[in-house]
């Protein structure tokens, strides 16, 4: 077998056309056109990378020279055959997978399915494991830092009357006590804020913050606020902050390392998918917190209907939703949540 290739000298751009004769265990190189003998190289002394697509094969000679040759099947097989062994290697190789239509079609089907599987099951399961390993002291420090950062930026001291605050705090205490939680640090706080509107949020150490606007929205109704408190307790009890952090990290890594190599074309596209995926995770956690509230309503001396009422109060203050919110929002749609609470009430 005779092939034509290029021989690049080690350490410089000098090169020449060569003729390459393939024997059983060696190749012989002659210059073109004067046919001077350039060298005989044993197969065992050659180094070559695996085949990719239809690229010319690059073969490193022991003296540092580099041979580049457009190979046919015979040469590919000769090069891929492990040094010294006489039997041809098995047909299996990366490039045969990459060139196979069957594998390509299988990949088009399987890759998206497996990706969905990873996002739906593997990452959430890993997040739960991760959350269970985070010690309470770390969550406590993190919560304190977060609250003080919020206090210096968007939160201000509550402007509610002291007696209202006291009455509500006592009611919340009774909810905590009735649930017999094994989590140590539950407590409630009130804050005034321009930016967050009617809202309540939980920090991972068990601090739950209500905004003045929320208290005013439900007209100081301790029952509705307690129902909302149950939802926030659900977040703390099931370690939702830590799980969300773990899920965010995992999503970022999957997108960076699975799709990053061919990027440059579509950073915006990747950013958008990251947001959409994280919204799905967040919605799932909200649903879990709702389920917690509905399941523990009776124990706290409330009914699922109280939770439905609280959500309706929130709905009255927020703009209407449409189906696109399912993608663009971090919370499930209020109307679905209300319906679910009502269903829980009637099945009681």
């Amino acid at each position, binding site marked *: 077998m005779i092939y034509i290739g*290029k021989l*690049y*000298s*080690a*350490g*410089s*751009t*000098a*090169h020449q056309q060569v003729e390459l004769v393939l024997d059983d265990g060696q190749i012989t190189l002659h210059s073109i056109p004067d046919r001077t003998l350039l060298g005989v190289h044993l197969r065992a002394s050659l180094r070559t*990378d695996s085949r*990719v*697509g*239809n*690229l*010319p094969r690059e073969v490193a000679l022991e003296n540092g*020279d580099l041979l*580049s040759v457009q190979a046919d099947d015979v040469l590919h097989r000769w090069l891929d055959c492990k040094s010294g062994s006489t039997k041809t290697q098995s047909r299996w190789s*990366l490039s045969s*997978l*990459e*060139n*196979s239509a069957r*594998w*390509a079609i*299988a*990949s*088009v089907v*399987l*890759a998206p399915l*497996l*990706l969905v599987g*990873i996002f739906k099951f*593997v990452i959430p399961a890993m997040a739960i494991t991760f959350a269970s390993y985070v010690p309470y002291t770390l969550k406590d*420090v*993190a919560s304190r*830092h*977060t609250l003080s*950062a919020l206090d210096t930026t968007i939160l201000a001291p509550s402007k509610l009357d002291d007696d209202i605050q006291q009455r509500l705090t006592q009611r919340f205490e009774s909810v905590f006590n009735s649930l017999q939680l094994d989590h140590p640090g539950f407590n409630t706080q009130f804050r005034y804020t321009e930016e967050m509107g009617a809202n309540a949020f939980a920090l991972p150490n068990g601090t739950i913050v209500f905004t003045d606007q929320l208290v005013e929205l439900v007209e100081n109704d301790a029952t509705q606020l307690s129902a909302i408190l149950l939802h926030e307790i659900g977040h703390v009890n099931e370690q939702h902050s830590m799980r969300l*952090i773990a899920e*965010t*990290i995992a999503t*970022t*890594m999957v997108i*960076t*390392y*699975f*799709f*990053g*190599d*061919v990027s*440059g*074309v*579509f950073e*915006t*596209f990747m950013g958008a998918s990251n947001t959409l995926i994280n919204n799905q995770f967040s919605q799932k956690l909200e649903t879990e917190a709702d389920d917690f509230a509905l399941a523990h309503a009776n124990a706290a001396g409330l009914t699922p209907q109280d939770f439905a009422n609280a959500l309706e109060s929130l709905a009255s203050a927020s703009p*209407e*939703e*449409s189906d*696109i919110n399912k993608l*663009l929002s971090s919370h499930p749609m209020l109307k679905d949540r209300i319906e679910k609470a009502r269903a829980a009430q009637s099945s009681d």
Partner: protein
Amino acid sequence: MDITPDYSTYSYQELCDARATIDASAYPDRAQQLDELIASHSDHVTSEQEQAEAAEGTFLRKSPVNFHGSAKEFFSIWIVNLLLTIVTLGIYSAWAKVRTNRYLYGNLEIDGHRFSYLAEPLQILKGRIISAILLVGYILAVSTSPMVGVVMMLVVAILSPWLICKGMQFAMKMTSYRNVRFGFTGRYGEAFLVFLLFPFLTLFALYLAMPWALKKMDEFILNNTTYGDKAFSTELSGGTYFIAGLAAGVVSMITFLIGIGLVGATVAFSGSEPATDPTGNISIMLGTFILYFFVFTLASAIYSGMIRNHMYENTRLADVATFESNVTVGSYIGLKLTNMLALIFSLGLALPWVKTRTLNYLAERTQVNILDGIDSVVASQEQTGTATAEEVASAFDLDVSLG
């Protein structure tokens, strides 16, 4: 007394001054003598220039840039590697990166020779593991405490010039052409100025000096890139960067205003009241989102098309090569917009097609003038770097690219 000055002792500049001030009608012979001397000097000057040019290499031939990859072949390679990456929970991504790059580099040909990507998967894997650990630590720190987050961001910012230099160094070392590797010689100090300080300072000029800062970045990258023992050199014009920035800015501003008008009109005509009807709000949101994509693509196509042409024309690889690029803004916009649409409607599956077609487009519009130093480039003997910095840089989104 009327003594003729000894003009032969005059310098070129002094001769010109004397000729400009002399009264030629009163002293015609002196004026003529001056003219002759000036003429002999300019001969001398041009011959010096010619000599300098000759020393920098004579033109041998013009070579097109060819990309031999096909979308079909690349799609198959990409999707199979993606599957293997998913199945191995990301471990295989290092091998996938190497194979993908080998395919793309190896199909790029100039003057009858191909490029090669030389990185080993294990180098990449090691880099990825380290960068993943750092990324996890960083996100954890940022999300547990805002204070620690601020400190970490500062640390990353201060380290970023170093990461960029090391990353470039690895990327260049892993690229070879005709068995000789590229290299990168940029150092922390200058990188700190170019990537951190200058962009920060433009803040005080309301970003008006941003084109100048971008010019500095491109110059830094090009002037520090080497091929074997030869260095790239470039001198870019701030004016072109300002014009490109201005063109991109004005066009996107006008498009945005027209677009906002269109979105508003569509919503008004469909008869919904945005304040009460949720579908009205959503169409405004979606419309604005699409508009944002459109304007972003438009602006980047205008800017990078213009800058690419300018950069190629003003860059030289010692006595080895000069470059030409003739990307037209209209066709480049067309390319980028269709790329974006294809990606969205194929849910990302068009990625390999987008990649190969973009490389084809750019290759077709690039020419290399080969100079006679090409056959005598000698590989420089330096240590091969590790992939860690490159991987960390790309995980923290610090990748730099020209233009």
